[in-house]
């Protein structure tokens, strides 16, 4: 009995921390897909760039961990502003095919650049002292890192909630999602709003990539490898439903962790099979009925 409880707690902690990292990375894509109707397959690239910046600053320049997280976010936000003006602005209203091709192109460029700069192998991460080790939570010991990730993830969730529900920026954004033309007519600068939202989403992806670097190893293929997981979250949350995406991300994290723990040989499959079945079953999202 105690063993089962301990295993369940393990799945809970690892699954939730994993799910929250997925949420932090995916939320930007949820925003871009819901708001701007853009299939941004390069979203994982922002997470990868964030991760590489943070880890290389820590390894090479010896910057403190939390400062590297901030640096990664700031650099990626600035980069995303440039890319939005150069590339993404042309994709608004373009066909899905054009969007896929363009963003895959960006993906390949990032993969190539990472390989040239950091080599083809996994880029090792060394966690700072205060995140190493584990604490005893009654039934078993847990890594401090996982607990840190959960706290950070929850903080992001609260901040996002406040941003969307309690600020005029959030109100305008929701208005623009609901009806872009009317929002424009009443004087909301939708273009600027999109630019800001895109920057926030990309910055969060960078944060997720940097914080999650010890969970999702940094390698040149990162932008493609985790794209699938992020897309699962976006698809199942119903393309643009921010609240649902939190739930879906945590469910995905839990199922993936449980799958790998219970059936190690086929653990990697569980999540993909789930995606396929659920998407075929409910193409409009897991909580589609309730959301609308």
């Amino acid at each position, binding site marked *: 009995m105690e063993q089962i409880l301990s295993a369940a707690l393990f799945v809970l902690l690892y699954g939730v921390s994993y799910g929250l990292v997925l949420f932090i990375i995916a939320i930007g894509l949820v925003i871009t*897909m819901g708001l701007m109707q853009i*299939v941004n397959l390069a979203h994982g690239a922002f997470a990868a760039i964030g991760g590489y910046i943070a880890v290389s600053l820590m390894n090479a320049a010896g910057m403190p961990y939390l400062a590297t997280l901030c640096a990664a976010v700031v650099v990626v936000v600035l980069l995303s502003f440039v890319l939005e003006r150069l*590339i993404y602005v*042309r994709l608004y209203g373009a066909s*899905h*095919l*054009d969007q*896929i*091709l*363009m963003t*895959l*192109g*960006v*993906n*390949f*460029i*990032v*993969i*190539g*650049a990472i*390989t*040239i700069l950091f080599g*083809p192998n996994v880029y090792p991460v060394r966690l700072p002292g205060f995140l190493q080790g584990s604490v005893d939570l009654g039934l078993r010991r847990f890594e401090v890192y996982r607990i840190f990730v959960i706290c950070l993830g929850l903080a992001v969730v609260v901040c996002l909630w406040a941003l969307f529900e309690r600020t005029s920026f959030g109100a305008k954004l929701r208005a623009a999602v609901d009806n872009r033309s009317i929002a424009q007519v009443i004087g909301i600068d939708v273009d600027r709003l999109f630019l800001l939202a895109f920057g926030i989403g990309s910055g969060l992806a960078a944060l997720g990539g940097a914080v999650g670097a010890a969970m999702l190893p940094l390698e*040149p293929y990162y932008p*493609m490898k985790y794209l*699938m997981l992020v*897309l*699962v979250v976006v*698809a199942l949350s119903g*393309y643009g439903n921010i609240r649902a995406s939190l739930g879906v991300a945590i469910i995905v994290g839990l199922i993936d962790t449980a799958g790998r723990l219970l059936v190690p*040989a*086929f653990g*990697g*499959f569980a999540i*993909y*099979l789930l*995606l*396929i079945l659920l*998407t*075929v079953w409910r*193409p409009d999202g897991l909580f589609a009925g309730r959301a609308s």
Partner: protein
Amino acid sequence: MTLVVESSKALVQYRFSTCELIPFAVAIAFYYALPDYLPLGTAICVTAIFALSLDLVIGYAGIVTLGHSVFFGIGAYSAALLSRNGWGEPVSTVIAGAAVSAFFALLSGPLLLRLRGLPLIMVTLGVASVVSEAANKLSWLTGGNDGLPGLTFDPVFKMFTWSIDGKTAYLYALAWLLVVLIVARTVVSSSFGVALQGIRQNELRMRLIGAPVLSQLVAIYALSAGVAGVAGALYAQSNGFVGLEALSVDQGVFALAMIVLGGIGRLHGAIVGAAVYMVVQYAAQQWDPYYWMLAIGVMLVLVVRFSKGGILGALDELSAGLKRRLESHL
């Protein structure tokens, strides 16, 4: 009456033109001029067939799939397994590979092709990932990471042996490319092909005029999967080896890049795109393998940004511009 005019307009571009012979003239010239590069030429033919199959579904029927690598892989593994079990006659092996691929497309099509847009893109990507993972785990069947090496096939038509210089493989793959192109042309210029384009342009209207949209989509999906299976089987035969990379999701993504590069929805674009892609890839890899991804990424962004029609589209514009200039001078 107007409808008839429009549909005949849709068929105009499929009249035979002498320009279509150019790729094959180039291919024959290549055979005599660059005998050292025949393996690259064979790879180009195989890739072109795969790109053609993708153009059929994406360019004509508007089914945006990222999972076409599955059918290439199924064709390749079918051919390899047949050879392993003593069946080495090459042409029938290719047909068998195509049939197995088409069969799986017929099974999965009715489910997948109900989806549109983003869900379709993601489910096809998901299926491709699962299948490639599954092939890795089913090592008793697929050889897992080691693949199926040392495949041998009988001489083509019992006459042409698979020579070390790659001449047989090249001409054999080129012949298949010609066959596939003729089949694809016939299909897209038939009323079925025009109906597919109707579905791509306005599915609702096609439904309203009573077109059996789903079964037409499944039909082209299966046909395209069969063609992808041909490419896969040829890949197995020309390399004598099939590994997991035949099923890799990237195959489908790169093929998409090729048809966009050459010009989407025009069959020859797939051939030109595959050739340019493979040559650039070859050159980039000679130079430094890691610059390859960068090069293809830049190519993709530039093509989508500047020339929607790809290389052939740009040539069309160029020739139209020249013609206009000539006419104004005369």
